């Protein structure tokens, strides 16, 4: 009840400095979530990360070992390669869709948005199994190609890097399209017109006006997809091959083996790689301003 009292008191104490009360109110509003996050998220994560430098003894030995660990290096390489491929793939497929949406009438754009978001309402697990059905040795694609006489023997699609890339691009597309379309929609419609009236061809308008003004969306979408891809688990586990292990799978494996310090060490590395990437992006000229531009 004390929270309510403080809040309803505000108009009555208007003659007194209001700020401290507002402050208290804000703390009370945000407090429960902060407490929850500290207890159930921040502390466990820190405790887990601490294990990477405290077990078996207090040292950085785990990390130095990691640098020469061929399994880790292979997995880390696969993870980076997959994340890059998925990011490039979603950007190339998502940008045209976002651009088309920005040029549609509002109702048509809404419909496309729903279609884009539709996969969001299905669990990733279900979508990944769906890809298994499609890509399997006796899956839809192989059966269709065999029936059409295009193939004599079924292609090996499932449990390959290709399968991982295709399935992950499918799952990540909304994360790319949403920020892109929101930024593209904000571009003043008079700007492409102005560019055309000044003599720019359609391609010129896109390259010189629309594309540069959409960079905040490109950066946001790229970061989002890349960071999410780095830590992706379910899809690679289901449709990937045994030799295309991703970092999160390796971590899960180590946890299963109760190899806590190694798992913690891998997690710390993944976290560090992600943070490093975000920091690098902040340093690219224009990106920081680009984020601000996106907010207007």
């Amino acid at each position, binding site marked *: 009840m004390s929270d309510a009292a403080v809040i309803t008191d505000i108009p009555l104490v208007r003659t007194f400095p209001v700020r401290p009360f507002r402050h208290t109110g804000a703390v009370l509003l945000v407090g429960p979530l902060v407490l929850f996050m500290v207890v159930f998220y921040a502390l466990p994560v820190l405790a887990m990360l601490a294990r990477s430098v405290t077990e078996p003894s207090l040292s950085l030995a785990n990390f130095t070992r990691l640098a020469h660990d061929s399994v880790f290096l292979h997995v880390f390489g696969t993870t980076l390669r997959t994340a890059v491929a998925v990011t490039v793939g979603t950007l190339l497929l998502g940008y045209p869709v976002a651009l088309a949406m920005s040029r549609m009438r509002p109702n048509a754009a809404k419909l496309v948005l729903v279609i884009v978001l539709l996969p969001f309402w299905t669990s990733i697990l279900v979508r990944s199994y769906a890809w298994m059905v499609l890509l399997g040795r006796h899956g839809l694609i192989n059966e269709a190609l065999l029936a059409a006489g295009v193939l004599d023997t079924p292609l090996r699609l499932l449990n390959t890097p290709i399968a991982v890339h295709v399935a992950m691009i499918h799952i990540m597309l909304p994360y790319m399209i949403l920020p892109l379309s929101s930024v593209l929609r904000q571009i003043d419609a008079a700007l492409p017109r*102005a560019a055309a*009236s*000044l*003599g720019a*061809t359609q391609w010129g308008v896109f390259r010189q006006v629309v594309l540069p*003004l959409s960079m905040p969306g490109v950066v946001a979408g790229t970061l989002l997809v890349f960071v999410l891809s780095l830590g992706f688990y379910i899809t690679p586990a289901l449709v990937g091959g045994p030799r295309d292990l991703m970092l999160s799978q390796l971590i899960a494996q180590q946890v299963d083996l109760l190899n806590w310090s190694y798992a913690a060490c891998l997690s710390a590395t993944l976290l560090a790689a992600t943070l490093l990437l975000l920091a690098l992006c902040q340093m690219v000229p224009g990106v920081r301003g680009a984020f601000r531009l996106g907010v207007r």
Partner: protein
Amino acid sequence: MDGTQAALPSAAQLPGRGAKISLVDLEKRFEGVGAVRGISLEIGSGEFLTLLGPSGSGKTTTLMMIAGFETPTDGDIAIDGHSVIGLPPHKRNIGMVFQNYALFPHLTVAENIGFPLKQRGVDRATRTRMVADSLAMVRLPGYEARYPRQLSGGQQQRVALARAIVFQPRLLLMDEPLGALDKQLRESLQLEMRRLHADLGITFVYVTHDQEEALTMSDRIAVVNEGRIAQLGRPEELYDRPSSRFVASFIGESNFLSGVVRGMEEGLVVADCSGTTVHALAAEPLLIGTEVTLTTRPERMRFADTAFPLTGRQNRVRATVTEAMFAGERCRYLLRGEDGAAIVLKEPSGAGTRRRAVGEATEIAWSVADTVVV
């Protein structure tokens, strides 16, 4: 002009610096609804023509069709004798200034103004020089390195203007370019646009809903209403001889008196307005018994007993003052005629004029030459 002329051939080859434009029975329907319903208009080389009308009248749609952003449903647009229907906007070589400036926010002032030159393959050195020249022309020298967001609204509009003229188009289209600016700035930019028009000698087509702006700036005004031209003429013609009630009330303020034609006399219409005889100019003879509306401007009316008498033939009606307002340079009176009609009268303020009191019975007079049948 060294290499520049080669890149911009159209300006050199044709007579006159401004384009001639013909709109022929131009129509535009959006999903069956007519936005422009048959506009025909000849715009002379170097003319400053304003399309004036209320919002939704079709003036902007007409401009957009000239620019190439809208395709006419019917009719033709010819620039310098060649139809431009089917020519995409970027090939029309028309300068355009938009209402909200439409400056590219990610480019500097110099890059914005250099944009049309870059599209035309003008080399960097020439570009720099031409950008500086056009910035000087709009009185913003030295602003090359700024970004649009670092400029005030008036400065942004000057940059937009510089960008629209730097490639020496023969035609400049402007869509309510001063709409977003405050009154004082608008007035100073109006003067600058007139000056720029005189300096450049190119054709200006200007869209506005602001009648004062149209009257101040234009060589000719086309009053657009409901997709058609209601009247076309010089500002004085439109103001002094409106051809319809719409034009009379849209441009400036007007008084309307309804009457019945009693006859014609020396080319003037003699009408009976609730018992008072009023003479008026008419474009054509009218039949006796025709019901007419006569119009005259509030500032052309006088109190009959004023110290500044009118010359020539006059109309006189009796009226009672119902409201008196002081508005600085003039006094604005609201009067009621004997038939109950509301009449507005504007009198210049000064020591020589007597302020009228509300309720005062008086007689007002105005020149027959300032009375028009609409």
